[in-house]
């Protein structure tokens, strides 16, 4: 319990720092046709242990979203996306539940659950996060639908690639 809590706190801090110090400046936005945001902090929500209650997941997601928002100067946008991802996580986990049920002590990592499962899990959640984020950022659905799709895909490729790299490099067990 302690080590899990500790691990998650460290993960929180590391990912937030990585996001605000490094990735914030990577964003390509000057050319208005394409707006790429590299987001890595949703990984925190993804890797929370199985046994965290849905309410706690929502709350933690809100917190990390708000923290990132504070540094990005966009109060509420990242928070909204994170809360959505947290909500989605509960549903997706229920969908992807293997036959024996989850071992509640573990976390949904690739080591515990295998690459295949992890791909399905992270793909859905991560894509959902980015989609919601770009929808809020544009805030109009009527004029910028193509905009949202475009931004989501381009950001997704980069961010997801980074996520996979981190998974491979750090190989988190829990």
């Amino acid at each position, binding site marked *: 319990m302690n080590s899990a809590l500790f691990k998650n706190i460290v993960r929180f801090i590391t990912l937030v720092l990585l996001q605000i110090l490094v990735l914030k400046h990577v964003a390509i936005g000057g050319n208005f046709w394409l707006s790429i945001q590299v987001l890595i902090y949703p990984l925190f929500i993804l890797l929370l242990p199985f046994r965290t209650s849905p309410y706690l997941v*929502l709350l933690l997601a809100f917190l990390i979203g708000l923290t990132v928002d504070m540094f990005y100067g966009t109060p*509420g946008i990242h928070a909204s996306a994170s809360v*959505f991802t947290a909500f989605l996580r509960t549903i997706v986990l229920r969908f992807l539940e293997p036959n024996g049920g989850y071992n509640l002590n573990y976390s949904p990592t690739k080591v515990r659950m295998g690459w295949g499962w992890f791909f399905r899990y992270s793909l859905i959640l991560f894509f959902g996060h980015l989609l919601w984020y770009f929808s809020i950022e544009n805030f109009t659905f009527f004029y910028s639908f193509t905009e949202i799709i475009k931004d989501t895909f381009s950001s997704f490729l980069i961010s997801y690639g980074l996520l996979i790299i981190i998974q491979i490099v750090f190989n988190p067990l829990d």
Partner: protein
Amino acid sequence: MSTIIYLLQRFGAFLTFFVLQIICFVFIVRYNDQQGKIFWSSVNRVSGGVLENFDQTVRYFHLRDDMDSLAAENARLIELLANAEIDTSAVAQQITSDSFRQVYTVIPCKVISNSVNRKNNTLTLNCGEEDGVLPHRGVVSAQGVVGVIQKVSPHYAQVMSILHRNFKISALLKKNGTTGSLVWMGEDPSIMRLESIPRHETIQKGDTVQTTIFSGLYPTGIDIGVIESFGLEVGNYAYNIDVKLFEDMTRLDYVYVINNLDKEELDQLENESGNE
């Protein structure tokens, strides 16, 4: 109580999600410029539409008062216009307010009865002696000349419409100032005949016909109509000019009674000189 707990258990996660999203939404709309602008412009469009429709409906109930105040405003403006032409200063250097005498007062009235299809048509107005209306005063509308007051009672007045065989006022052509008499032929309620324009004058179709002060009924320059057609029969001294009226006599609503304050003085003077 147990159903509430049951509902909370089943949908608790969604509720929390919903609440958190509301909080996020408030943050987003309040503290982000672009999102705030988009949100408020959409909200304003909806609320504006609703309020405007409501206002349109409510406005209908104020129509009567609006019309009355507009008629009063018009009377005041016509009065200003009519009186502006009178300049009695004999000395050119002196321009004080005394030199502009108040000669005309204008009373707004509503037409409560009208006819256009008889040979001699009359109107009835809802103002009378108590409002300052006296017989033999000119009546105009926003578009043009309407008639002359014939009889008054304390609260009502009867007007000889211009569409009356006995109606005859002097009118002038705007272009060259030639004066003639304006009468109604008794047929078309939108056409009157301008007589006594001598054949040596040049006439143009489309020229405006206006009132003169010679009848003592109207101030100069009130529009009556335009020349629609004119003809000259062989051997006649004057043209036959058809004037198309500006005012649609079938749709009279608010009219203005022109009270010439000097009229009694003028009448008296003319009577005296006539009797000599």
